[in-house]
């Protein structure tokens, strides 16, 4: 088995549902300086991308957004898999490796774009739903990655984009909307032309409080609200209240920190496809 096949097999055995390779040169054609793999690891040549950790099909059927967003998925397993894969590359293949943190470097800016890496690794293509990468087999996937100095053959972008799905193209031709845009018209807008995404806009500032309802930002905002509050009873109501309590718990347990909305994808035919065979 060649080294690339070994890496993909190892990634899958560690819990990834899909894995692919992107070349650093290819990523650097799009990523700005400061956000390139070789800004993190000198001499980096390849990025191994792991996809997984999306909500189970049962989570989509939970019937409430709160259950789906709170307990339906967990991103920690893939982070651990990426770290273990990095050790595997160093211990067994003899190249430098570093897992890419999936969190932010400063404010809302990431270390590097995992969406871009996933696209170049052939794990999916950008969608109308905020540019979320959709995988042809699994639909929604979260991504982690390992940057390495090991030269590996790039999988490259998919030949055919996953989005828009043929049913979305038909809906667009009839009603000038798609399931994602109609589910969240304030975060999303766009246009389909000749069966392809012609353009799409995503308002991250609108999405953020819905996707990260109990994350670090709201912790800071409620803390400031409490500090500025002169009334002791109201201060107690803020700090002991349910929202601040959830925010504290989210930070303590690294849960409910991101991706708490899912509304744009709840009726996406690509996301729903894997659940069709279930009973």
């Amino acid at each position, binding site marked *: 088995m060649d080294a690339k096949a070994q890496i993909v097999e190892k990634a899958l055995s560690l819990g990834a549902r899909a894995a692919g390779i992107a070349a650093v040169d290819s990523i650097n054609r799009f990523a*700005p300086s400061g956000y390139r793999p070789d800004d993190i690891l000198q001499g980096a040549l390849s990025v191994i991308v792991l996809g997984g950790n999306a909500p189970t099909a049962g989570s989509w059927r939970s019937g409430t957004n709160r259950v789906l967003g709170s307990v339906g998925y967990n991103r920690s397993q893939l982070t651990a898999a990426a770290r273990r894969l990095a050790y595997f590359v160093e211990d067994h293949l003899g190249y430098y490796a570093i897992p890419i943190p999936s969190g932010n470097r400063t404010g809302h800016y990431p270390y590097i774009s995992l969406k871009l890496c996933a696209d170049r690794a052939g794990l999916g293509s950008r969608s109308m739903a905020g540019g979320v990468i959709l995988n042809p087999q699994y639909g929604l996937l979260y991504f982690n990655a390992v940057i390495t100095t090991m030269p590996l053959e790039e999988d490259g972008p998919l030949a055919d984009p996953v989005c828009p799905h043929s049913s979305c193209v038909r809906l667009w031709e009839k009603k000038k909307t798609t399931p994602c845009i109609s*589910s969240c018209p304030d975060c999303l807008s766009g246009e389909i032309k000749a069966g392809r995404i012609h353009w799409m806009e995503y308002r991250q500032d609108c999405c953020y409080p819905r996707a990260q309802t109990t994350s670090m930002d709201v912790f800071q905002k409620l803390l400031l609200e409490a500090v500025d509050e002169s009334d002791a009873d109201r201060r107690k109501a803020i700090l002991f209240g349910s929202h601040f309590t959830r925010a504290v718990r989210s930070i303590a347990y690294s849960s409910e920190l991101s991706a708490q909305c899912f509304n744009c994808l709840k009726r996406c035919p690509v996301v729903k496809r894997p659940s069709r065979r279930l009973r």
Partner: protein
Amino acid sequence: MPRFVNIDLYNRHKDEIWKLTNAKQRFESQISHRGLTDREIASQLGLTVAAVTEIRCIAENEMISLEKYLDADDTKEQRYKRAPGKM
């Protein structure tokens, strides 16, 4: 660069910096529309990178109101039940 950004500097530049970030993203085939990095914004506005980073981080938090977070659960639950195409 002081440890914390000067609030006058913040107030002077927060709106223009916010507009240059990834807060609003556009994708269009073959055309690049990405938000700018702190280094690129600093170069465009004649500020230090450290100042831009501080201003951006505060603006990212301040520009989204607390109410949006507190109302989010209700908004999401209502939309979760809504049929596609219904605005």
